[in-house]
């Protein structure tokens, strides 16, 4: 039961993008189309899952083999250790993507290596995986990953429909629709995420009232 609640919390209640405001840079930069959004979401989820598993296991291992003193000194350098773990997984993603999905890799560009500094991943490693056993950490990573992907897709959906009148290349707004180019350009990302956040706040306030 607890595991399921860890899994679900990332999707709405503690959504990393809209609630915790983490990982904003890739969210805004990559959400020009649904395809990019899902690609980025999948890559981030993979890194999140890998780093949460390794960090959780590392902490258990340290607790088993090290003395009290050793654990204290390891605790001081835990952030660099986490960063190296994350960077290794990002390198794996980078290489796999450029080998099997060259087009996606091209359009995500610089934001693939920048997954390393996505605050969601370090935040979850430090804030959750280093304090919890393996299974909840896995559930947390998957939940947060799905929440991130959904938030990205929600932003991309609105931007793509308004900005190009199509989803995944299929025109849905009809011939007479003139695309609002602004939504594909950088300003559109800021406006859309601002409006989404305001909408969520408004929904919360309404829920509290009733």
């Amino acid at each position, binding site marked *: 039961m607890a595991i399921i609640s860890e899994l679900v919390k990332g999707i709405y209640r503690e959504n990393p993008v809209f609630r915790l405001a983490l990982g904003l*840079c890739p969210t805004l*930069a990559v959400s020009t189309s649904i395809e990019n959004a899902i690609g980025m979401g999948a890559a981030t989820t993979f890194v999140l899952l890998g780093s949460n598993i390794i960090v959780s296991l590392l902490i258990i291992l340290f607790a088993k083999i090290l003395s009290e003193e050793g654990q204290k000194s390891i605790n001081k350098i835990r952030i660099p250790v986490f960063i190296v773990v994350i960077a290794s997984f990002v390198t794996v993603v980078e290489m796999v993507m450029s080998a099997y999905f060259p087009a996606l890799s091209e359009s995500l560009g610089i934001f693939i290596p920048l997954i*390393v500094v996505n605050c969601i991943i370090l935040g979850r490693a430090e804030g959750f995986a280093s304090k919890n056993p393996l299974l909840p950490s896995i559930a947390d990573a998957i939940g947060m990953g799905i929440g991130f992907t959904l938030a990205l897709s929600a932003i991309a959906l609105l931007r793509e429909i308004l900005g190009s009148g199509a989803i995944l290349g299929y025109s849905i707004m009809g011939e007479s629709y003139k695309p609002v180019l602004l939504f594909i*350009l*950088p300003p559109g990302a*800021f406006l859309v995420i601002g409006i989404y956040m*305001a909408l969520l*706040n408004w929904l919360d*306030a309404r829920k509290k009232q009733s």
Partner: protein
Amino acid sequence: MEYSIFQIIILSIFVNNFVLARFLGLCPYMGVSKQLDSAIGMGMAVTFVMTIASLVTWLLYTFFLAPTYMNIFYSLFNTPIQNVPDLTFLRTIVFILVIASLVQFIEMYIQKVSPTLYRALGIYLPLITTNCAILGVAVLNIDLFFIDGLPKDNSFIHTIVQAFAAGLGFTLVLILMAGIRERLERTNLPKPLRGLPIAFIIAGLMSIAFLGFSGMNIK
């Protein structure tokens, strides 16, 4: 296309502004833009670290990671060029480690040498390690100013100029945003818009304004 130094400065401050056009460094942009003083401090710290990090990562990439005749294994140890290891895939790991330790080192150095500067920048320095603008500018320099691992002409100077200008551009929009948000505190906004949502919408409007620069023809 080759750019002159002046073009690089204008392009990276206005046209390809790091925050508003490239979406890098948004966390400090939203987090530290509530007061003018802290915005200036953060801007200075980012510009400083960005320039030094770009310099160091350029040296590392040219002399250690890329398998060219500039590589240290080739030039110092006379390894045949085909045996020089291609370590470019380690770019992400090496850069983030270098930046993290560099920030630590700069912090200690400033604390020792100039306590006044440390008081101005001190609290912002640790936040910078996970600022994607720093790693972003380092990776971007490699993408822009290298061909197959070999630096282009004037690549070193262009790298430093681009990093410094990008830092200035970041500082500029951070200060603009702080000025707007300080006034916003005293306005009567609808409740759901308060805080981050309105900040994003303002950033969107600023971004539209900065979009105007992309029509500029710089000679």
